[in-house]
């Protein structure tokens, strides 16, 4: 295993390990993320509550670890859905020539003309908040960049001999699209999607922070920070702990995506 490969699997392993801990948090941590005890409210980090407690006496460590579930899982799902849909449209627009392609490309331009967060805030605001709606709002704005990317990759391929050969062999339109072309463009899609996950995490957390995403009392980093905002002076850990959780998670995904890109680079130069 090359050094670059090891680096990639190291970060991927770290992410999966963190996710596993988060999903099993209820069984391995002494306190549950929703266990209230007003007697111990707003304790600073100490030996029994390593990261302190919030205003309802809930253990910050348990809540923060459990918070990864909602944010990370929905971010990965959003990235996957957006990448899949954008890729599908991009493949079609890159290979097919016709009125539908023109319409789809114009539509993509329109979506790209909206600043991402502005549109996401509006969509989430109209749909009315909640985890699913926030995720949907982000997915709606995240797909067009995949369409652009994939189309630009597909366009030069259209004139390649092996595509002409496939056409002359009588392969169907969809078969050429998915069997001949897709495997050649999947690399850059994966890298973009991996880079995207970190951004999506901050966007989902941002929507929750505005009260447009996951609603309290659910353990979600953005809404935890939002709820604790006015405690910044008296109990700063209630705001900083989920904040650093987002920071560390996004950083991990960035490192993973970077190492994936490096990995792909060696293949292309070899």
């Amino acid at each position: 295993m090359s050094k670059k490969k090891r680096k990639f699997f190291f970060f991927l392993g770290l992410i999966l390990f963190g996710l596993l801990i988060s999903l099993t948090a209820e069984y391995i941590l002494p306190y549950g993320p929703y266990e209230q005890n007003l007697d111990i409210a707003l304790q600073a980090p100490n030996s029994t509550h390593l990261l302190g407690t919030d205003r309802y006496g809930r253990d910050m460590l348990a809540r923060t670890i459990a918070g990864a579930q909602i944010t990370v899982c929905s971010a990965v799902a959003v990235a996957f859905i957006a990448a899949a849909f954008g890729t599908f449209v991009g493949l079609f627009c890159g290979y097919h020539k016709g009125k539908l392609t023109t319409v789809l490309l114009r539509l993509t331009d329109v979506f790209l003309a909206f600043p991402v967060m502005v549109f996401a805030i509006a969509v989430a605001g109209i749909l009315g908040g909640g985890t699913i709606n926030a995720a949907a709002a982000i997915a709606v704005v995240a797909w067009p960049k995949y369409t652009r990317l994939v189309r630009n990759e597909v366009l030069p391929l259209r004139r390649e001999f092996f595509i002409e050969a496939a056409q002359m062999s009588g392969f169907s339109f969809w078969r050429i699209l998915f069997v001949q072309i897709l495997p050649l463009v999947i690399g850059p899609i994966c890298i973009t999607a991996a880079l995207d996950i970190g951004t999506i995490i901050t966007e989902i957390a941002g929507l929750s922070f505005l009260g447009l995403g996951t609603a309290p009392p659910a353990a979600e980093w953005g809404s935890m920070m939002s709820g604790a905002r006015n405690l910044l002076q008296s109990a700063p850990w209630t705001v900083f702990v989920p904040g650093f959780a987002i920071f560390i998670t996004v950083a991990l995904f960035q490192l993973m995506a970077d190492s994936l890109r490096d990995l792909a680079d060696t293949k292309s130069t070899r």
Partner: protein
Amino acid sequence: MRGYIIGRLSHLIPILIGITFLSFALMHTVTTDTVDILYDQNGGATEAVAAEKRAVLGLDKDFFTQYVNWVVKILQGDMGNSFVSGAPVLTSILDKLPATVELMVLALVMTLVISLPLGILAAIRKGSIWDQIVRLLSFTGNSLPDFFVAIILLYLFAVKWHVFSFLQADSSTLPVLPALTLAIAMTAKYMRQIRAVFLDELGKDYVRAALSRGLPYRYVLTHYVLRSVAAPLLALLAVSAGSLLGGAAIIESIFLWDGIGKLAVDAIMMRDYPVIQAYVIWMSVIYVGVNLLSDIVCGFLDPRSALQGKED
């Protein structure tokens, strides 16, 4: 050149139609009826009254007629009235616009002041400790959500050091902290882009030719390279203006800076749909306008980019 500008402007029309159509369709899909919302606050209304109101507002017509009527009204400067205050939406948007523009401009200036020297330094001292530091800074900045940066800044400057008052609602002073928050997020992205553009340019033949003719490095850098990277740097800055506009909504709400972003977030909380609609349209038009302007300026700075645009 004029042809290029006209071409870019005509390209804008379908996008503007798309933006308005999408914003309209979004509001149209809202499950709750506009008239119901209007009357719910006053304890509901009889069907007859509601139907009459629908006819007055044109809500009994089909989707496309409603859309066209709505666009015509917007072009006449009527973006509807707020459900909450009843005031014309356009007036309140125009009221809040200067504050947001002030914040944006200050954030852009801060971004340029921080990222230009650091990005150039990282490029000309590639691989040095400076390059590593810039790399680390932009990595950290990219991993920090802007609202967390806002909170860190508030904690440091307001709680710990008491440099600024806790919440800066006063519009007579400059929005230093909110602008700095936005600038930090932008700098993280922009620094790396500046570095990449500079590295690309420094590797070109004309730089080697100028250096081998004995021109001092500093002279080549300021007179040749800086001039030719102006266009791509401007284009990148215009693209990232989108994240600035989006970030402003969150940042303005945190710092209680009385701009369009805060207006929109407040409107969402109160389900004030006309205001949300106007917000989306204004922000998108500003974003599209900024990018158009940067394209045109780039066309003047580097006529080749105008020619490339033609081939599309």
